[in-house]
C-alpha cells in the first residue's frame, strides 16, 4: 500500500502556495468534458460540488436524504473556527495550527493542519458573501466566542445553529449550480459500492431509495463526502441515517482506512433516559463558556442541586485544570465526567450525569443575555427532559459525537485508490486523535471550497476525460455484487429486527471501545462482534421487497457494514497500546490518571488494508514533526 503523503517541500508557511503553483491545471475549455461524482451533500460535499461546477466540471451529487439541505451538517450548533484575529487577542494562523495539532495530541500531519488554519480565513469571507447571518456586534462587525481547547476567541457562530446556516449557504451555492444544469442532483440515492476499473476509481453503484432501482454512474473521479461513522455505537449525537457504508465499501475495494479507533466522545450531551432511546442530543460545547460543571463533593448526595451549598460542590474541571477550567478539551472533560460518575458522585436517576450550571452566569449577565446566547439550546433541553435549565442546572453526560478516523488521504486528499478523493469527516486528515470544537465545520468547508477544487485538477489533468464507461466489466461486477447482497439480506428470514442488532452492537462498542479501552475488553469485543454478525446473517427478519421504498432494507445494509467495521475499530484500538487524545487505553496513564502518549512507538497513522477472506493488515505512515515538538499535552 503506497502511503506517501506527498507533503510539498519548503517552509511550513509556504508549502500550500508552492504546491498550488506546481499542481497541473485543466484547461478551462476542457473542464466540461470531465465528470465528477460527489457523494454527500453536507458541508464538505455541497461546497465541493458547487465549487467544482463553478469551475466548469460536470458534477453528479448524491445524498440519501430527500434534499441535500438535510445532510447531517445541518445539526452542528456551536460554531466554526477561523484565524481572523478580529478580536485582536493574539490569534494567528500559526496559533490555530498549533492549537489544532496539540488538541489532536500530535497524531496529525503538520502540513495538513497548517493548511487548514491558513484557508480558515477565506471560509468566513465566502460564507458572509453568500448571506450566512453570523452573529454580529452592535457596530455591525462579526462576533466571536471561545471554544474548548483554545484561549483566544476565534469561533464564529449563528446563534446555536451554525451548522444549519453554513450548510444552507453551501446548499444555496449548490442549488445555483443545479439550477444552471451544471450539477445533477440525485436525492434519496444511496451509494452501495465503489467501482474501481483498471486501478482507478471510475464510478459508483447506487440504489434509488424510492423505487429500489440499482444504477451505475461513471465518473472521471469520485469524491466521498459521506461523513463519520459514529453510529456504529447506535446511540450517538449523529443523525439516524449517518453510516459508514460508502467509506467501508471503498475500503473493501482497496482504500486504506486510517485510525479507525479514533472517536470523539463529547462531554456535554443529555443523559440517556431509558431503553427506548433512539439517539442522543448534544448540548453545544459553547455552553461551557458560561456554564460551570460540577458534581456533589460527597458520594451518593441525592439532594436537589439547588440545595447543595457551594462548599459541598466539586467544580472538578476548574479544580483540576485551573488555566482552562470548564473549557478543557473534549476528551479530557469527558473522561473527568466518567471518573466522577465511576466514583459514585454522578447525578440524576441513573447516576450517569454531571451538572452544567448557569446560576452564576444568570446572576452576572442576566437571564436575557443567556437567553440570547443559548435560547434554542435551553428550549431543546427543556423539551427533552421536562426540566427548566434557567431554574435547575442541566444534567449532562458524554456521548459519541465525531470520528477522527477515516479513509486515508494524502496532502491532495486522494485515497490510496487513484481518482478517489475523500473530504470532510469521512477522511482522517486533520484532527489527529482528538478534534477541537468548531473545527469540523472549518475542515469540511476548507476541503470542499478551497483544497479539493485545486488538487483534483492535478489528477484529472493527467487522465483522459470520459474514459470510464458503465459497460466496463468492473461496473457489471459491482452491480451484481450489490444485487446479490440485497437478495441475501432479504432471504435470511429470521426473527430479529435490524434495530435490535444495531442496539446490541452499540452496547458492545460503548462497553469495550468507548471512553476507556483495555486489552481484555477489546479482545472480548473481538469475540462478541463476529458472533453477533453471525446471528445477524442467520436471524435477521427483513420484510418487504427490494424494488420499493423499504426503510428496513436500507438500515440492514448499513448495520451489516457497521458489524464489519466495529471489528476493525477494535483491532485498531487493540494495536494502539498507548493513550492519545480520545483513545484512552487504561493500561497507559500517568500517576494522576491522564492519557500517556508513547511517541517512541506510536507516532504514526495506522492504515488498514482489506484482504478478501483474510484478516486486514495494518501499515504505518510515520508522523514527523519539524516545527512543533510534541510535548506532553497540558491544560492545567
Amino acid at each position, binding site marked *: 500500500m503506497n502511503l506517501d503523503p506527498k507533503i510539498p517541500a519548503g517552509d511550513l508557511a509556504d508549502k500550500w502556495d508552492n504546491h498550488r503553483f506546481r499542481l497541473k491545471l485543466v484547461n478551462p475549455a476542457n473542464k466540461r468534458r470531465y465528470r465528477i461524482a460527489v457523494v454527500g451533500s453536507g458541508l464538505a460535499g455541497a461546497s465541493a460540488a458547487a*465549487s467544482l461546477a*463553478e469551475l466548469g466540471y460536470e458534477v453528479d451529487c448524491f445524498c440519501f*436524504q*430527500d*434534499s441535500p439541505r*438535510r445532510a*447531517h451538517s*445541518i*445539526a452542528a450548533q456551536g460554531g466554526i473556527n477561523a484565524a*481572523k484575529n478580529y478580536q485582536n487577542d493574539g490569534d494567528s494562523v500559526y496559533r490555530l495550527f498549533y492549537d489544532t495539532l496539540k488538541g489532536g495530541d500530535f497524531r496529525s500531519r503538520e502540513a495538513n493542519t497548517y493548511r487548514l488554519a491558513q484557508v480558515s480565513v*477565506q471560509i*468566513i*469571507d*465566502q*460564507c*458572509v*458573501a*453568500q*448571506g450566512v*447571518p*453570523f452573529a*454580529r*456586534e452592535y457596530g*455591525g*462587525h462579526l462576533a466571536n466566542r471561545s471554544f474548548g481547547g483554545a484561549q483566544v476567541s476565534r469561533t464564529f457562530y449563528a446563534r446555536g445553529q451554525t*451548522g*444549519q446556516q453554513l450548510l*444552507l449557504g453551501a*446548499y*444555496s*451555492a449548490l*442549488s*445555483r449550480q*443545479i*439550477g444552471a444544469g451544471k450539477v445533477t442532483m440525485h*436525492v434519496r440515492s444511496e451509494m452501495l459500492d465503489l467501482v474501481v476499473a483498471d486501478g482507478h476509481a471510475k464510478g459508483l453503484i447506487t440504489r434509488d431509495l*424510492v423505487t429500489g432501482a440499482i444504477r451505475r454512474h461513471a465518473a472521471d473521479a469520485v469524491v466521498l463526502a459521506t461523513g463519520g461513522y459514529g453510529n456504529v455505537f447506535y446511540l450517538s449525537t449523529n*443523525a*439516524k441515517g449517518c453510516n459508514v457504508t460508502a467509506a467501508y465499501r471503498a475500503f473493501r475495494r482497496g482504500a486504506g482506512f486510517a485510525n479507525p479507533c479514533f472517536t470523539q466522545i463529547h462531554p456535554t450531551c443529555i443523559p440517556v*433516559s*431509558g431503553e*427506548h432511546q*433512539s439517539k442522543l*442530543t448534544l448540548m453545544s460545547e459553547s455552553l461551557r463558556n458560561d456554564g460551570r460543571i460540577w458534581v456533589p463533593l460527597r458520594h451518593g448526595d441525592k439532594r436537589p442541586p439547588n440545595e447543595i451549598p457551594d462548599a459541598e460542590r466539586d467544580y472538578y474541571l476548574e479544580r483540576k485544570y485551573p488555566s482552562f477550567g470548564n473549557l478543557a478539551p473534549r476528551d479530557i472533560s469527558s473522561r473527568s465526567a466518567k471518573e466522577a460518575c465511576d466514583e459514585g458522585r454522578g447525578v440524576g436517576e441513573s447516576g450517569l450525569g454531571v451538572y452544567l450550571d448557569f446560576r452564576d452566569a444568570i446572576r452576572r449577565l442576566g437571564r436575557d443575555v443567556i437567553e440570547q446566547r443559548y435560547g434554542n439550546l435551553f*428550549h*431543546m433541553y427543556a*423539551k*427533552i427532559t*421536562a426540566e427548566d435549565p434557567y431554574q435547575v442546572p442541566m444534567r449532562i453526560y458524554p456521548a459519541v459525537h465525531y470520528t477522527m478516523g477515516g479513509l486515508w488521504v494524502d496532502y491532495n486528499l486522494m485515497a490510496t485508490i487513484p481518482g478517489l478523493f475523500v473530504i470532510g469527516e469521512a477522511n482522517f486528515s486533520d484532527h489527529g486523535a482528538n478534534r477541537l470544537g468548531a473545527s469540523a465545520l472549518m475542515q469540511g468547508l476548507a476541503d470542499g*471550497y*478551497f483544497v479539493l*477544487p485545486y488538487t483534483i485538477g492535478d489528477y484529472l489533468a493527467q487522465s483522459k476525460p470520459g474514459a470510464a464507461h458503465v459497460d466496463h466489466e468492473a461496473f457489471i461486477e459491482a452491480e451484481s455484487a450489490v444485487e446479490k447482497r440485497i437478495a441475501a439480506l432479504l432471504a435470511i428470514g429470521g426473527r430479529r*429486527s435490524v*434495530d*435490535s442488532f444495531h442496539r446490541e452492537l452499540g452496547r458492545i462498542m460503548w462497553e469495550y471501545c468507548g471512553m476507556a479501552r483495555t486489552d481484555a475488553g477489546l479482545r472480548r469485543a473481538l469475540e462478541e462482534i463476529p458472533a453477533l454478525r453471525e446471528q445477524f446473517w442467520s436471524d435477521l427478519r427483513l*420484510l418487504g421487497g427490494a424494488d*420499493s*421504498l423499504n*426503510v*428496513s432494507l436500507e438500515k440492514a445494509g448499513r448495520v451489516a457494514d457497521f458489524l464489519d467495521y466495529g471489528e476493525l475499530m477494535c483491532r485498531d484500538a487493540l494495536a494502539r497500546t498507548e493513550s492519545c487524545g480520545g483513545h484512552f487505553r487504561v493500561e497507559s496513564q500517568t500517576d494522576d490518571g491522564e492519557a500517556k502518549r508513547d511517541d517512541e512507538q506510536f507516532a504514526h497513522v495506522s492504515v488498514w488494508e482489506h484482504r478478501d477472506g483474510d484478516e486486514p493488515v495494518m501499515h504505518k505512515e510515520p508522523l514527523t514533526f519539524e516545527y512543533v515538538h510534541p510535548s506532553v499535552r497540558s491544560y492545567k
Partner: protein
Amino acid sequence: MRLTLHVWRQANSAARGGMVTYQLDDVSPDESFLEMLDKLNEQLIERGEEPVAFDHDCREGICGSCSLMIDGIAHGPDAATTTCQLHMRRFRDGAEIYIEPWRAKAFPVLRDLITDRSAFDRVIQAGGYVSVNTGSAPDANAVPVPKADADAAMDAAACIGCGACVATCKNASAMLFVGAKLAHLARLPQGQAERRMRAKRMVEQMDAEGFGACTNQLECEAVCPKEIRVSVIAAMNRDFLRSSVF
C-alpha cells in the same frame, strides 16, 4: 401509557391508501413521538407486518425531515416544535392519535407517511441564493451589517424547509417558505444586487410547482416549528411587485 393509533398506510404513490388502527401498550411518557413509532414498528416486524415508513434524520428539530399531521395538526400539538421533538408526556394515557402524511398537491405521498418535497428544492434552485463564486469574496468585516438586520435575517433563515406551512394551509400555499428565504437575503447587504430578480424567479417557480395562493389565514405561522412570522409574506409581495413594475 396505552395508545390507539390510526396511521395512514399507502404502499406507493400509485396505490390507494387508508387509515389502519393499531394498539400500542407500554409507551413511556419520556419517549419522543418518533420513538413511539419505532416501538410500533418493532411490534409490527415481530408480527410479520411491514413497518410504517416515515421521514426523519436528525431527531433534533433542525434537519426538517420529520413531517407528520398529528390529530390534524402539522407537527402535533406543541407550538414551535417539530414532530421529532414532541414527547409522549404531551398525550394522555388511553389517547387515540391520528397520524397522517403532509397533504398537498405539490407533495405527493411516496409511501405511508413519506412525501416528496423536492418542489421546495426547485424553488430555491430558481433563485434562492446570492450569486458568488468560491474565492471571490471580500473580507468578511469589509461591510458592517447592523446587528438588528443580522438578527432579522437570522430569524428568517431559521426555516428548516419541513413543509408544515404548506401542509396546514387550505390552499397549500408555500408563501411562508418562499417569503422566509427572500426575507433572509433581503435583510443583508449581500442580498441586494439580485433582490428583485430573486423574488420574481422564486415566486414564478412556486406557482409552477402547483402551490396555492395565500388568503391570510395565518395557519402557517401557527404551526411553523421555527416561528417564522407571516410578515415575511408581505415583504415578499412588495419585492415581487417591484420586480414586475420595473
